[in-house]
């Protein structure tokens, strides 16, 4: 939903290891208690306040209301023990907070006061309403818990699949596709559909929960990457030479020749942009709603095979062989930020949902966690084998692939990790990793096909039905598509700080004009240079042309002079008038003054 994030992810990791599994009832009870306590405290406070106010003889709104509450009676004669609307927990209100309030300026224009108070009221109402109608299943995510002296990472997938219910158990499966591997993987935004791209040309779409094959084709070319577009109806395939777009039936819709040698792709769902990184060092943006290339940026950093997006602000992160990670937006031809992360080349980059943490792995076999709001390193880990692929889940679990082993880590940024949360060996080298949205499932593409493994606590249990509904029908999808297109965000608005749009532009006029000139390619305020017409019959002789030019120049000059003279005259006149007035006022001549000698 419109949650300004953070809170959810943080909540899930507050608990340490020895936390009882979360259930409805104890949680609710506790909350209820809390509420009661809070209520009582507040009531006490209110009473105290009332007493104080009575002492000071002040009549405030609060007191009045308190009095009314006391006076409120029901027919049955019983008082309502919980008067007023139900309280909203403060943390939930804080979750929907947008910036701080401003103080109402004193002694300012009443319109300003009204406007500010009105907007404050509106935003407060919005905040409260959002908090009130927040997620209805706020229970904590459950994690895998081992017995004493048992590492959770030693528990095998089979055991988990046996332990959980049948539906969840069926989510652990292997697809043995040894012929065209290794495979790249991508889940659609709702998490229902899966696209597999085998290196040797095999592309398949699967409704993975029902195991229904939507389409299966062989493009007869090497496939570098596959990516779903905004819905499960279309997906892009980066093939050997060009970028192709297929529909869910496997029909080729487009072959985009502007995008060549694409190695990696990212889709920005709210901007309808497909960002591609090519072997030639180009970062290109394709607007899939109109089918136009937005920008093509030459990064000048060589082959780009490491790429990810920041879901918070739609910035693209690229990893380079010289150990740097660069951040890109389609509006700037140079990197917004360039970070030196590894001593060797960067092998993989990923950013968490809230746009706070970036995890990188490099050739130096290190795994690093950065806070990308401040660009400071938080944690650094050494993985003996080095991680080739990284992926972060919605709840903040990190999966890293080292060779043929997939490891999953918890809390990589908050507490130092020594052991993985889970580990699983797949038949051959891992090529693609992707957590399934809204499911506790990690999809692993490897040399021998595809493995869907269970990772308890990975997915977000609460989905926004209007944004990404895993259970939506075709009709709902169509509706959503229309709305999403209407609410499409323009690529110009991509910047490091997504709230920049809400700020007032404080640049000077000159600066703005310069920007405008740059954007338009010409100066709209500039005066056109006079070019004399070519005249026949010897009238366009060099002397004549020069004379004409001079004439025009003189005319211009005359205009200028006229203007200046006029302004001068005007000023003089005004000055004189002022003087006259001044003399009149100073002397105050009466009617009889004329008889004076």
């Amino acid at each position, binding site marked *: 939903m419109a949650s300004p994030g953070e809170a959810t992810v943080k909540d899930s990791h507050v608990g340490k290891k020895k936390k009882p599994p979360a259930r409805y009832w104890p949680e609710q009870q506790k909350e209820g208690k809390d509420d009661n306590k809070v209520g009582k405290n507040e009531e006490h406070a209110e009473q105290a306040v009332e007493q104080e106010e009575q002492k000071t003889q002040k009549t405030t709104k609060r007191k009045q209301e308190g009095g009314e509450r006391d006076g409120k009676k029901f027919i049955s004669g019983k008082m309502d023990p919980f*008067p007023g609307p139900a309280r909203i927990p403060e943390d939930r209100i804080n979750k929907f907070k947008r910036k701080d309030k401003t103080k109402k300026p004193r002694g300012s224009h009443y319109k300003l006061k009204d406007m500010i108070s009105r907007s404050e009221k509106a935003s407060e109402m919005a*905040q409260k309403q959002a908090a009130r109608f927040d997620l209805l299943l706020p229970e904590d995510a459950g994690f895998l818990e081992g017995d004493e002296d048992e590492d959770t990472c030693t528990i095998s997938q089979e055991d988990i699949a046996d332990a959980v219910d049948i539906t969840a158990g069926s989510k652990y499966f292997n697809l043995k596709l040894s012929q065209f591997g290794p495979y790249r993987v991508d889940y659609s935004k709702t998490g229902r559909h899966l696209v597999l791209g085998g290196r040797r040309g095999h592309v398949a779409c699967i409704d993975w929960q029902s195991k229904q094959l939507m389409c299966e084709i062989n493009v007869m070319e090497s496939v570098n990457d596959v990516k779903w577009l905004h819905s499960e109806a279309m997906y892009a395939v980066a093939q050997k030479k060009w970028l192709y777009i297929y529909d869910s039936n496997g029909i080729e819709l487009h072959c985009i020749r502007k995008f060549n040698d694409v190695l990696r792709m990212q889709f920005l769902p709210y901007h309808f942009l497909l960002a591609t990184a090519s072997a030639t060092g180009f970062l290109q943006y394709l607007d899939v709603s109109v089918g136009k290339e937005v920008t093509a940026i030459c990064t000048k950093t060589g082959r780009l095979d490491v790429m990810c997006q920041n879901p918070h602000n739609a910035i693209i992160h690229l990893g380079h062989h010289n150990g740097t990670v660069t951040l890109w937006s389609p509006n*700037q031809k140079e990197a917004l930020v360039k*970070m030196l992360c590894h001593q*060797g080349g960067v092998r993989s980059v990923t950013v968490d949902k809230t746009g706070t943490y970036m995890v990188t792995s490099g050739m130096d076999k290190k795994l690093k966690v950065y806070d990308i709001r401040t660009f400071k390193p938080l944690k650094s880990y050494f993985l003996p084998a080095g991680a080739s692929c990284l992926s972060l889940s919605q709840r903040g679990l990190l999966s890293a692939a080292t060779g043929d*082993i997939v490891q999953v880590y918890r809390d990589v940024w908050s507490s130092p990790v020594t052991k993985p949360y889970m580990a699983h060996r797949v038949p051959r080298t891992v090529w693609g990793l992707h957590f399934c949205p809204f499911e506790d499932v990690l999809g692993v593409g490897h040399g021998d096909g595809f493995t869907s493994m269970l990772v308890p606590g990975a997915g977000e249990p609460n989905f926004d039905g209007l944004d990404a509904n895993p259970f939506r029908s075709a009709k709902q999808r169509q509706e959503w598509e229309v709305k999403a297109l209407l609410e499409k965000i323009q690529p110009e*608005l991509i910047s490091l700080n997504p709230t920049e749009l809400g700020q007032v*532009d404080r640049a000077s006029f000159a600066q703005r004009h310069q920007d405008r000139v740059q*954007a338009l390619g010409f100066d709209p305020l500039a005066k056109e240079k006079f070019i004399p017409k070519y005249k026949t019959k010897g009238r366009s002789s060099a002397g004549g042309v020069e004379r004409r030019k001079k004439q025009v120049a003189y005319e211009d000059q005359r205009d200028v002079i006229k203007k200046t003279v006029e302004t001068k005259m005007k000023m003089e006149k005004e000055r004189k008038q002022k003087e006259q007035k001044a003399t009149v006022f100073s002397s105050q001549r009466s009617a009889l003054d004329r008889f004076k000698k």
Partner: protein
Amino acid sequence: MARATKKKASKKSDKKRSELTEEKVEEKVEVMYDDEDLNEDDENITSEEEEEEDERKHHKLLEAISSLGAKRKKTLGERSEAAVQMSEFTVTAEGERDRVDLSDLIGSMEKTPGVTSRTKKQLKNLQKDNKTIESPLSRQETDRIQRDVAFQKAATEVTKWKGVIKQNQRAEQLIFPLNREPSGPKPIERVVTSWKAHTPLEEEIFSLLHANKQPIHDPILTPAEEASMKAMSLEEAKIRRAELQKARALQSYYEAKARRARKIKSKAYHKVHNKAKRKEFLKQFDEMVKTDPAGALEELNKIEMARMQERMSLKHQNSGKWAKSKVIMGKYDLVARKAMQQQLEVNKDLTQKIVTSLNAEEEEEEEEGGDAEVLPDFVNDAEQAVDPSNPWMRGKLSEDPTEKDMIVDLTAEEAPRAAEEEEEEEEEVKEPEEEVLLREFDERRKQRQAQEAEAQITVEEEDDDEEEEEEDKAADEEEAELSAFTSLFREKAEAAADVTDTSAQLEEGLTRIRTLEDVELLSVPQEEAAADEAPLPPPPAENPPPEPQKREAAKPKKRKRAIELKEVLTKEPKVIQVPLAPTVEDAEDADEQLDQRGLIKEAFAGDDVVADFLKDKRKQEDAGKPKVVDLTLPGWGEWGGTGLKPSRSKRRRFRTKAVPPPPRKDQRLPSVIISENKNSAVRLHQVNSLPFPFQNHSQFESTIRSPLGRTWNTERTVKKNIKPKVVTQMGAIIEPMAREELLKDKRPAAGRGGRGGQGGRGGRGVDSQRRHIRDKRAEK
């Protein structure tokens, strides 16, 4: 005249008003007296002039007579004398000593004994005052003053609308037409209360109802009923109802009896009846003397008056036509003689002085001393009341009328003030009315309680006050009648009045009982409604903003960049143990060559990566720095030529140092290069100047901080956010505001929800901007 008005005033129920009118009357009278004085003065002056006038007239007459016979001559206009001093009244004031001075007049005043010292003083003051009255202002000036006053008046009239207009301007939403009734079914009470009389007939009826204190606006209870509601409980009400029922029954009996008696034509019966009544009255009067001396005195006065009239008139003195005829017949007719005698008896009866204890006392007192001081107070009062017309006797002369006279040209100002005063008076009057009512009921209750104690219920005694009122009303007619019968007649009249009165009371009682139950029933929903209307408890206080997440610093701050960078990169990482060792090498996946290169890079990684990065960063920093411009030219003021450099001082003079740029964002981050280029794409979509009422950026930014769209808000919030400023009803005529609006807005306007607001150009501009921006709001 004064008397008559005074009578009228006395009739009015509210004493205050009556007093006021009295005052007015007195003033008038005073004025009249003044006029008379003046006239007298004039007479004094003119007495000598009249003689001259007469002479002149005589002369004229002679001329006229003489001219009758002769030819008709052209008569010239009279131009008699050329005097230095011309009077306005075509009267010469030849001898100045003939003029009458004020002192001459006042001199005589001092000699007269009847004049009070006070008036003397005043006159003296008047004499001392030698001020001449200023000449009247010119027409232009008076006009200007009048215009000023008129303008002020108009301005005050217009400023009354200020509040309403401001409120409307500021209102968050205006729904036209303004005084629109909320749709949907309404509770019947509100419908009834909000109904207003429009036609003259209705208004007339309403005025009548209003005069009788009938409920108009609140259909449930009259003020009297409400007061009674306050005054008595249910049991008391029941008792009272029983009483009233009984009273009504008695009333009907009495009425029936009276009707029967009235129909009896027998003279003998009536004679006896009247005699009995008279006797009874006398008996009553005797009793009254003991119990209620004041009332008795009044009675006595009336009787006295009747006696006086009887003595004045020849009604029963056998002097009428009838009596004369009877005298002729009397010699032979016994009956006639008897009738005559009867008449004389009546006369005797009437003229006989009634000696009561009161009278006796008075007479005795008079006989004893005749001192005014010994007289009872009320006697004095009455005398004072009898002639208020004498201005000299009233001590109110000091109340100057000058004040009001002075304000001739300030009438405009005075008018509203007068209105205000009137309003105040009304308010003052209104409050006492209610109080009086309450008091009445209190008294009644007390009486009833007393009656309960005595266990005797009488109807007549119940409403003493009302009886008195009735008396006052009937007084005019009754004065003329004969004293003996007056009381009887009055009793009848009272009875009649009582009929109406008690019947009204009975009705009252009936309604009251109904309303007692009704009110009990009604009060509950009203309370509930009030409870519903009560505003919600205050929202929980705003939480303090959450503390920004603090990241534990991986390393302490250090100044030296290069070293730090290396430290960052070579920092001891945590080694993670993996239970499963990878069996497959990475080498398998990628092409051999690439991996080879990677391996080499890995092997020789370290210094050159860091060095490259630092070099890159330095380059960026240098590019960002502004360059020093050197404008030195060789030769000017110096020797120039090959191998000669311009001097240092000259170079310094022509070198312009640029201002150092603001610190880079990545100043403290050694391993990061942040581009200093501004994002100009967003700038095109940003608001580039602060909208009107805002004073700084933060204010404006805070007002647009929360999104408006459906995606980010609940439905209710969205509806509130996009509420239009003005709503007009389709097909409804939007009329200019009526005066009622002004009155209505004195109460807080709850219906329209005008909560102070925006309006005008700036506000709307911002709103449109917000809406414009809404679509473009960024992620999430």
